[in-house]
């Protein structure tokens, strides 16, 4: 017996047809990826809330999804907009700088509670030195294997800029590790 796994387009069609389980399958398939992206953008403390908002918004406006990008890339775009709105809100309340400064620390703090090897700690520390934009692009490239075009859509940038950010990030990490 083969384990048939419908693709995103089929699940979306099923959900539109009233099959609730299709939405569950889509969430289970993409939630972790969206969460990683959200965390890479600096939203570490409220990742699940942002991910949840992302899916609620996505399914609430699924009619606007034309399939021009992959469903995951579309989700990432929504997530990025939500994070940006949150960060703007913090900026208005003058907390933005504090949180950005804290973010680098929290990336390292996230190691606590896990048994990390020395190599892993060095890798994490190197990634933590990246700017939020570098980190999000680098994470999408390394963990998802997204193309620069897909990344550009997700982060609201250009392919060229995404490529430059990725290579700068790679260089910075290598330099940090070689220290």
């Amino acid at each position, binding site marked *: 017996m083969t384990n048939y796994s419908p693709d995103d387009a089929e699940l979306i069609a099923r*959900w*539109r*047809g*009233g099959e*609730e389980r299709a*939405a*569950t399958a889509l*969430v*289970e398939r993409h*939630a*972790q990826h969206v*969460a*990683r992206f959200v*965390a*890479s953008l600096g939203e*570490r403390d409220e*990742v*699940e809330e942002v*991910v*949840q908002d992302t*899916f*609620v918004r996505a*399914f*609430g406006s*699924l*009619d606007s999804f034309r399939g021009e990008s992959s469903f995951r890339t579309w989700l990432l775009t929504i997530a990025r907009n939500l994070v940006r709105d949150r960060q703007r809100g913090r900026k208005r309340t003058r907390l933005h700088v504090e949180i950005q400064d804290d973010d680098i620390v929290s990336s390292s703090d*996230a190691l606590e509670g*896990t048994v990390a090897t020395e*190599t*892993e700690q060095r*890798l*994490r520390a190197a*990634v933590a030195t990246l700017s939020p934009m570098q980190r999000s692009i680098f*994470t999408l*490239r*390394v*963990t*998802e*294997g997204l*193309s620069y075009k897909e990344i550009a859509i997700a982060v609201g940038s250009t392919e060229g800029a995404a*490529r430059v950010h990725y290579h700068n990030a*790679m260089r910075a*990490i*290598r330099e940090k*590790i070689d220290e």
Partner: protein
Amino acid sequence: MSECTDGELRDLLPELVNGRLDAETQRAVEAHVAGCEECAEELALLRSLRPVLMREPEVDARKIAAAVHAQSALQPRRDAVRPHVSAPWRVAIAAAALLAVSAIGYAVVRRGSGSEEVAVVHAGDSIPKDTAHGTAPAPVVATPRAAPVHEPPQQVAVTPPHGAAPGAAAAASVGVLDNLSDLSDDDVRSLTASLDGMSSVPDADASAGIDPLGATLDDNSSGGGGT
């Protein structure tokens, strides 16, 4: 360490790590990496970094799915619940609503004027002349049709009541909002009788004269409805 001489293949290392290359491209990249020290080192770094970056954070997908279902219950799916109304039909529905409002408005005017409706004459209507008496026409203020004649109220000739003296013409000059109490009952009955025979009473269909639906319905009937 030798530096990479093929940036294009080097740029595909993340895709290689994520298994997103087709078989042919994968073989080409792997062959390149086998002879490129820099790419081999970068590939090893990527393979070390990926699980580190993948590890966090954990989210509860079932909880998120439950929130999606709860929200969709509050805001039903458009496709599943709300019937699609094509653009032509939206125009038709809007026009029908306009007709209904106009008809009601006209009915209210008629009721409000009671027997005085005989004085409601519309611009452009042809009104027969009482040639039997040959008296001078008495002006009556007319109203434009309920729709969509955009002319201002005009003075039009109306046959004066029987036996009206020339001087009475001025007295019979009434507007639609004026009272006809200056006319005798006989005068009113006579005027009513003469007007009843005319075709100038406003149509109940206030949209007569316009055809907002014509093109739309034609489009619709020819299958031109939008989707």
